[in-house]
């Protein structure tokens, strides 16, 4: 396979996943916003922007409103991480790798783009929610189309991109909640704190999983346990790490290329598996998650080198 094609496929996976994650993040934030006291609205949206990272908060600027933040995250062309920009970039990459995609996969990406193409404003709360629902439906179409693809390198590179992106997103989400969320004057374990943890579960579609696995009221360390260590949750860090390592191994079997990326991926998986939530809390959640995010970025660079991405 051409190195450029592999890079195109990998980035389709990353951008589509990023778009879906941001969709869920906005959805959950709208929910949290409506549960929280009105005075905390801007605080709630600032934390969503912090998850997205980069200069998001600065970009949105001083005249900060919830509506401005929603626009910024959904359709702002100036925000390279807005859903619209991610889907547009995914589609550009799909065009470059068109002959490696099934008609279904291409159409799923193209349809997602069509829902966003002419939007420069997500509308009010209702409008935004409707738009997010549409995008989620299209994202499920993309997932489904991937399932039906032949299991060859094309599929594996897209999924590898998905897994690397997913690991980054989940780690950021957890880190932001842990590190900076609770506004002053709000009590740990109070209603807002509880709502925030629920929101976080919502973003990774983990409410059901939480109830099923722990059978008790929301406890921060159990949410962290779920998001980091539980294989049952597809969006957990251990799941993403395990899938990344497995996909690299498969690609290696076919292409004959194994190297630094494989080593990094396996080492990361081994370390997560050798640890548990108690150890994590002891070493400091923020430090561990920051390290994970850095290593994920390093793995991304190693993949690009190993497969000679242009």
């Amino acid at each position, binding site marked *: 396979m051409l*190195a*450029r094609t592999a890079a195109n496929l990998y980035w389709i996976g990353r951008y589509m996943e990023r778009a879906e994650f941001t969709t869920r993040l906005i959805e959950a934030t709208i929910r949290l916003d409506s549960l929280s006291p009105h005075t905390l609205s801007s605080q709630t949206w600032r934390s969503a922007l912090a998850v997205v990272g980069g200069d998001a908060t600065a970009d949105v600027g001083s005249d900060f409103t919830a509506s401005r933040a929603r626009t910024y995250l959904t359709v702002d062309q100036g925000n390279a991480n807005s859903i619209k920009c991610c889907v547009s970039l995914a589609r550009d990459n799909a*065009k470059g790798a068109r*002959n490696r995609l099934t008609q279904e996969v291409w159409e799923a990406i193209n349809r997602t783009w069509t829902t966003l193409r002419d939007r420069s404003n997500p509308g009010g709360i209702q409008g935004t929610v409707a738009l997010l629902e549409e995008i989620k439906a299209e994202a499920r179409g993309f997932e489904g189309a991937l399932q039906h693809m032949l299991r060859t390198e094309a599929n594996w590179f897209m999924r590898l991109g998905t897994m690397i992106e997913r690991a980054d997103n989940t780690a950021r989400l957890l880190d932001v909640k842990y590190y900076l969320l609770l506004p002053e004057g709000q009590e740990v374990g109070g209603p807002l704190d509880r709502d925030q943890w629920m929101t976080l579960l919502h973003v990774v579609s983990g409410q059901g999983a939480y109830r099923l696995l722990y059978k008790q009221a929301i406890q921060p360390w159990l949410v962290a346990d779920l998001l980091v260590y539980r294989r049952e949750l597809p969006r957990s860090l251990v799941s993403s790490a395990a899938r990344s390592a497995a996909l690299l191994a498969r690609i290696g079997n076919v292409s004959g290329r194994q190297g630094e990326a494989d080593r990094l991926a396996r080492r990361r998986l081994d370390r997560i598996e050798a640890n548990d939530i108690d150890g994590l809390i002891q070493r400091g959640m923020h430090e561990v998650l920051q390290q994970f995010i850095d290593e994920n970025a390093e793995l991304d660079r190693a993949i690009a080198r190993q497969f000679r991405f*242009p």
Partner: protein
Amino acid sequence: MPRSRPFDELWGLELAGSPREGFETLARWLEDTPGAELARRQQSAEAAFRSLGITFAVYGDDQAAERIIPFDILPRIFSAREWERLTAGLEQRVRAINAFIDDIYGARKIIADGVVPADIVLANSQFCAPVAGAKPPHGIYAHICGIDLVRTGADEFFVLEDNARTPSGVSYMLENREAMLRLCPELFELLPVQPVDAYPELLRDTLYSVSPSQSREPIAVLLTPGHYNSAFYEHSFLADKMGIELVEGQDLEVDDDIVWMRTIEGRVRVDVIYRRIDDAFLDPLIFRADSVLGMPGLLAAYLAGNVALVNAPGTGIADDKAIYSYMPEIVRYYSGEESKLQNVETWRCREPDALKYTLERLDQLVVKLVDGSGGYGMLVGPTATKKQIEDFRAALIAEPHRYIAQPTLALSTVPTFTEQGIAPRHVDFRPFVLTGASSVTIVPGGLTRVALREGSLVVNSSQGGGTKDSFVLDGVQDG
């Protein structure tokens, strides 16, 4: 020129009479199939194209993301005898084209012998000086030619243009057939239609046959300008069908005059490049320095004999319209025979008498840019407005050497599905001629373009043209 009824390929010269000999079956099918049924099938043609995954994506334009060129379900048919005559003429012409190009970039005997004037070749914008002296494998330059033909009578075929650079449209030939098999399956039981689906394989064989290295399994790639190109769909389609990589310039590198492609497994040596980018963009070191589509050093690798380019650079000289006017002489010079396919009578406006003749009859003639294509830069006198004619007159007087003039031909018609029912519409035809190391091959079929507007002679898709399937019947049980 007096305008009589044009020749119809099904009905001959009498639209209401009996069909031409050998075409009775199709006429009966047309008669027996209820109009509503045909209408239903015509309407589902677009859906069939979409569900087959055949969409001609115009990627550059977000609004018109996927467009389908109108397809007409009534086929155009060639009898075995007609096809045999056509292919003999096509093979003769393409062999002459290759001999001519080889001569022009080599010994230039045809110029020395005074058959073609030196300036029309050497001062031609299509003449590619950097490849003079090149020795492409087997002396083949134009491996893939699309020869545009028109017809005015039962036995009158004319060559309108020789496309010897990177002719496109072959994907329509293949996909129109797929659509017909789905939409009108009974026609293939009624008529012994020769299949066209071997084309991608024959093309791949052609590519492999000209590989400079015959000692190892050749690696061939298709070089595309990328997905913004309007023919990208065809590039991707053909690469897919041939099972070869679809590459862009950035996927290739030249090292010590050897071409490599960058894959996830490492560098892989490339032997044959089926390039779908124009000469001007192939190699920024030699041609356009601002080109990012090709790759630096490609031409040196080609001249060193380490890679075959299909078609070879420099073939544009053979599809220039000024050269076209010499084709009968060129064919005679290299084959020693009279040309089996006729040229359309052509006035070269660079010659004062021809210019005078043309200017006096602008309302009757077709005037074309010598290096134009796609129906642009063209005046169709009989259907042009006064203003268009006067604008063209000015352009012609300013730069006469850039134009040729031809009579307006009464192009043949084929029954076509229109909003007013089945009606005759003008067509042309582009068969694809493959020249490999040991043979010239012509798949029995091609691209029939049809001018969907009543009376229109312009078949280009950019100007209201559509396409039809082209049936070539097997000889054993004609008709």
